[in-house]
């Protein structure tokens, strides 16, 4: 099972290494880890997708809590989230195939960001299923390279509240 947790950490050197090291030492599986700054320059946010059952997730939360520069842990399990992953993908695109590929790109509301004689580079943003679906659609044409940021997420505004 995949769980998404969002961790607020002090923006200090070594914190990422510490978190990654703890996961490795305790044998927890990271599916993805994205980290970046927040509006507060002293704090960074890490979005981690963890693989495991409930008991594992509880230990992950508790062990993260023991790391001193970790300030707050948000467990998004079961919550309504906006989830986004950003991918750059290089697809083989000989001129005669380009119209087909362009229509796929339009359907996914993706963007062409680079063109070469044999390849085009596409930028796709969206939840995991959309990213995976786009890769699948591109396979028949030939996927040259893929790079993803990993998931970031934020809870939706709760329904019914003001």
């Amino acid at each position, binding site marked *: 099972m995949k769980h998404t947790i969002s961790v607020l950490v002090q923006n200090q050197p070594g914190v990422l290494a*510490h978190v990654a*090291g*703890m996961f490795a030492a305790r044998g927890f599986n990271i599916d993805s880890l994205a980290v970046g700054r927040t509006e507060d320059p002293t704090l960074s946010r890490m979005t981690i997708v963890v693989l495991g059952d409930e008991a594992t997730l509880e*230990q992950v939360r*508790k062990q993260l809590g023991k*790391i*001193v520069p970790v300030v707050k842990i948000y467990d998004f399990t079961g919550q309504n989230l906006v989830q986004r992953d950003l991918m750059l993908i290089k697809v083989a695109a000989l001129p005669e195939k380009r119209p087909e590929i362009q229509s796929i790109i339009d359907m996914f509301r993706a963007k062409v960001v680079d063109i070469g004689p044999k390849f085009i580079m596409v930028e796709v943003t969206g939840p995991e299923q959309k990213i995976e679906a786009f890769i699948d659609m591109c396979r028949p044409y030939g996927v040259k390279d893929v790079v993803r940021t990993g998931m970031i997420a934020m809870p939706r505004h709760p329904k019914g509240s003001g």
Partner: protein
Amino acid sequence: MGKNTINSSVPISPSTPKSNKIATKQGAEVFIDVLRNEGIETMFGYPGGVVLPLFDALYKSPINFILSRHEQGATHMADAYARVTGKVGVVLVTSGPGACNTVTGLATASMDSIPLVVFTGQVKTHLIGNDAFQEADTTGITRPITKHNCIVKDPRDLARIMHEAFHIARTGRPGPVVVDLPLDVSTAQAPLSNSGAEIDLPGYRVRTEGHLRQIKRAAEAINESTRPVFYAGGGVIQANASEELRAVVQKANVPITTTLLGLGCFDENDPKSLEMLGMHGTAYANFAVQQCDLLVAIGARFDDRITGDVKCFAPHARIIHIDIDPASISKSVKVDIPVVGDARLILRELINYIEPSPRQEWFAQIDKWKKLYPLTYDNSSDKIKPQYIIEEVCRQTQGKAIVCTGVGQHQMWTAQFYKFSRPRHFASSGGLGTMGYGFPAAIGAQIACPNEVVIDFDGDSSFSMTLNELPTAVEYELPVKVCIMNNGYMGMVRQWQELFYGKRYSKSYLQHPSFARVAEAFGAIGITVTKKEEVPSVIEKMLQAKQCCVVDFHIEREENVWPMVAAGKGLDEMSGLPTGTSERV
């Protein structure tokens, strides 16, 4: 101590702009000031190139600095100092090899939750990452074995980071903290210490008071139970909660067992004591835990040496867990009533809701187990038995000495046969099981408690690892007493090879020097004992010695530690019980 206010007699550095009113001192001087503000009177360590400015500042300081012969020794000394005093142990070593030599000591302290602050020198900031002379990635290397670590890259952070290190080391679940100090930071001008007011740790919050509702639930469960057992660990001693624990145990009328690290938190001579449980614990403690209907864990972490096979641990019991670290709760064993917080505060509140209960049947059953399965050994042979040595030392010291051990059979026999009655009188590497811990620990304990008798029960193999600290004991005139249980083997390894590897003693026997002559060469007293009838008088002589004394007892070579819960077995599946068979009762 008091608040550190800006001392107007300290000259402000000429490089400070006139408009800047912050007073500064050389980093090394600020280092000393912070130590003084934190109440540090004793430190351990070893100099080196990048820490010369710090040692220069220490030269004029009244801090008692104990020079060891190896950084591992210094770290173990500081560790034992912390265990027997409750204060933070402080170490200062140099970069590269100096820092690397503290790794074992840090891991030892980390596993047993001991408060240490280890200052490691580091190369100049602009050389970091450049493979400089005596450079090591200390923070990278020590990250998994410290509660926290930090490198001071900016002199403006020096005082704050140092104060934070002490705060983190001693609060919550204690642990070792490493502070890496680059050479140029200790020579640069740094702002003065504000006595800890500058601490900024938004991610570090310690919850000390237990939730009242949980405390009441726990009390209710205790009051309702007919066959309860209290299981107390090192955390009770760390929390200085022995008095509160004793009061609860007596009021509730409950039997109590302790882990290795919990020895001394409850008087083992008291009839309610089941003594130690676990792999080499007493049969009565293990049976009691396996048959109890309620297990109250306090300051203990359900370590695998204690639980045996976790799947069949305490099968009939509801489990209460009082601990300051939420990560320990339900980590290995599912807990029914968790109470997170400081043991002392929680026990103090808990006692108000406890009602005594006679529990006659339960105590009668426990007495039966105690009579059927006492700890025994065959003392009829003419060989010297290690258990006899420990019993005799216990008798001659009235069970009041501070006891340190190495790791192995001798450690288990000490835990079994020395009857501990007071907290902070036992220092032993439980979690990591570090051979060689015993002797430097005894040195640290003697430094901490100059007027107490300090005994190191050691193994020949364990002692061989750190006997290089003998000059330290001699130089500081420490009357540490070392009892070597010399069987010419790594005893515990040999026992397992006997039981599980068809007596194939692969690399478990060693050729030893005459430890007595080694001790004498180092300037200590050395005595060899080969005859059983000499034991009491030699022990008497050892206890009266005013200087470091090493006694090499040539003991029965193939004595085993019993009872034993073998790997993969449940706690009640012990071998080596007095009836000669393993039993499920």
